[in-house]
């Protein structure tokens, strides 16, 4: 019997993990993390073959986010902390992935988000093996998780 691959879901809620257990559980052993720190802890403890990453983390308190609200406010939003916080929450998945890459975790990462192609190219330039599917489509997610980097569209 083939051993299941390990999938680490990173999200602020539970929807991705629930979906993954239901539709990908036959192929993957699922674990879930809700922040960059918990993802790093799980990766250090158990490792993972692939990552399924939510982009928007709007249910996480500011102190749990990757990224400095004040620095973001100053650099991008003319000092407006509210807009900076919203930005960090809306884009948190990409920043969490950046934090994991900085610690040497190079697994393939898949987002469920309809990124413009140019932005996906940017994410690949920044973070290597990254893919995205536009919606909760189990077949598409399964294909994206198992695709090798070279075969990514």
């Amino acid at each position: 019997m083939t051993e299941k691959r390990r999938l680490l879901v990173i999200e602020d809620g539970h929807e991705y993990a629930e979906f993954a257990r239901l539709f990908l559980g036959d192929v993957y052993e699922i674990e879930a993390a809700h922040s960059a720190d918990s993802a790093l802890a799980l990766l250090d403890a158990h490792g993972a073959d692939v990552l399924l990453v939510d982009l928007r983390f709007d249910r996480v308190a500011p102190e749990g986010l990757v990224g400095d609200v004040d620095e973001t406010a100053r650099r991008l939003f003319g000092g407006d902390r509210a807009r900076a916080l919203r930005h960090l929450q809306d884009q948190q998945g990409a920043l969490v992935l950046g934090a994991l890459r900085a610690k040497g975790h190079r697994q393939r990462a898949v987002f469920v988000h309809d990124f413009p192609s140019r932005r996906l190219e940017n994410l690949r330039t920044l973070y290597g093996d990254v893919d995205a599917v536009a919606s909760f489509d189990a077949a598409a997610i399964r294909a994206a998780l198992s695709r090798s980097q070279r075969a990514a569209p």
Partner: protein
Amino acid sequence: MRSNPLAAVLALVVALVIASCGGPASDARDRDRDATTSRTTSAAAWQRALALWGERDVRAYAAWRAVDPVSPEGREAQRRLDDADTIYRSVISRLRAGEADAEASLAALPGALALAPIDPRLYLPLARALRDHQPPDLVRAAKYYLRFLASDPDDAEAEAAVREVRALDLSSSPETATSVRATVRAFDAARRSGTLALTPARAEGVPPAALVASGIAAGLALAAIGALLAALLRPRGSSLARASEASPELHPAITYLVGCLRHELLKHRIGAASDALAALVRGEATPQQRAFLHGRLFGGEPLLAAWEGHLRAFERALGPRVDLRRRDRSFRDAARAIAAIQRLEGPLARDPGAAVPDLARAHAKLRAFDRELARLAARLVRTRVDEILLREVVSEVQSEYSAGMVALDEVRIHAPSEPVDVEVFRVDLVLVLKNLVRNAILAVGRDPAPRRLAVDVSVDVEATGEEMVRIHVRDTSPETITADAIRERRADRGLGLVSAALARYDAAISVEPGDGEFAKAVTLRFFRALGDADNDNESALASAEREAA
């Protein structure tokens, strides 16, 4: 002299008619009252003017003009009116010049409408320009004729306008044709009865009873006109797509609201249920998948309540300009699909075989709706930041009187060779840039030579994969200005206006120190609009199609 009871009644009726219809005397009183208000409380007058503008009231222009021009609010009002007026007149000129595409000529109109109300005197020239353009845009022309008639029914050209609008072929728009017919009938009625002479000179020799009857008829007719015009001019909401076309100032709000609706309801509840539903349709759903489907569609907050919450958020943010419940077919259909799904909870439990096809149909409609919203959000206005745009801005500022007096030793303009788009309406971006360039030119003009100006663009990739476009306006003036002063609108010279415009586009402004060649740079930061959004959403669309199939 004995008093005549009938004459007294007549005088009373005439007075009531004139008063109730807001005749010239009443208008004059209103104007006086407005002027007094604006002198004493310019802030309150400005708020009232903005409120009238928000309601698309034809009196908005007069209210803006009435704000004390010495006050800060009045200065902003006058400046915005002047900027908008330039655009309105330019649109009319372009139409008259016979540009091939009326749509192209009108492209700047929403930007002007977002800036300040239109001078009612321009309604008629605009209507005529649209009528006379080849090919004509008669429906739009009719609407501007109606606005003209509503703004000043007593204008000397009102009768000509009625004749002209009556002659338009509006067969392509029955709704507009109905509005026109109603207005024309109202004017005909007014001409037949209302103007009978509520003046003493014309009343001479007419039997008193007839005068009373005429007065009452005039009163009724004028009241009917008032009601009709009020009905015609009542702010009516439109579909989301039309509102986004007509009101670029709504784009950030629409984008945010659509994003919330798509993310929270259409993605996490409807989209997430797709695979389980597909398994159910195939007859292969496991108990867990059935439970998952049930949880997504019927667990937690009822779908209809969630939908209603989103609709109310749209209504709160966008106001009466948008009527999603009655005037947006896509939202109406989506509401029906949501209601259909909610009704199916019981039937699905009792007889899944019969209910599943209905559920699949409603689900497919919502997936198509999601796809449509994705397209709408992606289409919201983009502007290309290239050398053509930058040169146009600098050239236009240099053609102005004050800035044109400054002899610049060097103007350096540079933009990336690859296309760089930002999600900002072009008129707004031009307005913002013109203010910065004008400010820089006037500043260097106050200092000794050499006087240099540079406008250049840089693009940086963020850690999120997004790209930031920065437009730098550099000058050699040692005059200092701080970003805080701009944001708090302490800075004069239009920079406060810049700050307000940028806030609408999730952009920002900052002041950077000079690099040796230039004393400082005022920098605008925008998110880059990445790729061709219509195509970029094709994968999502294809996925939705597969599910619908």
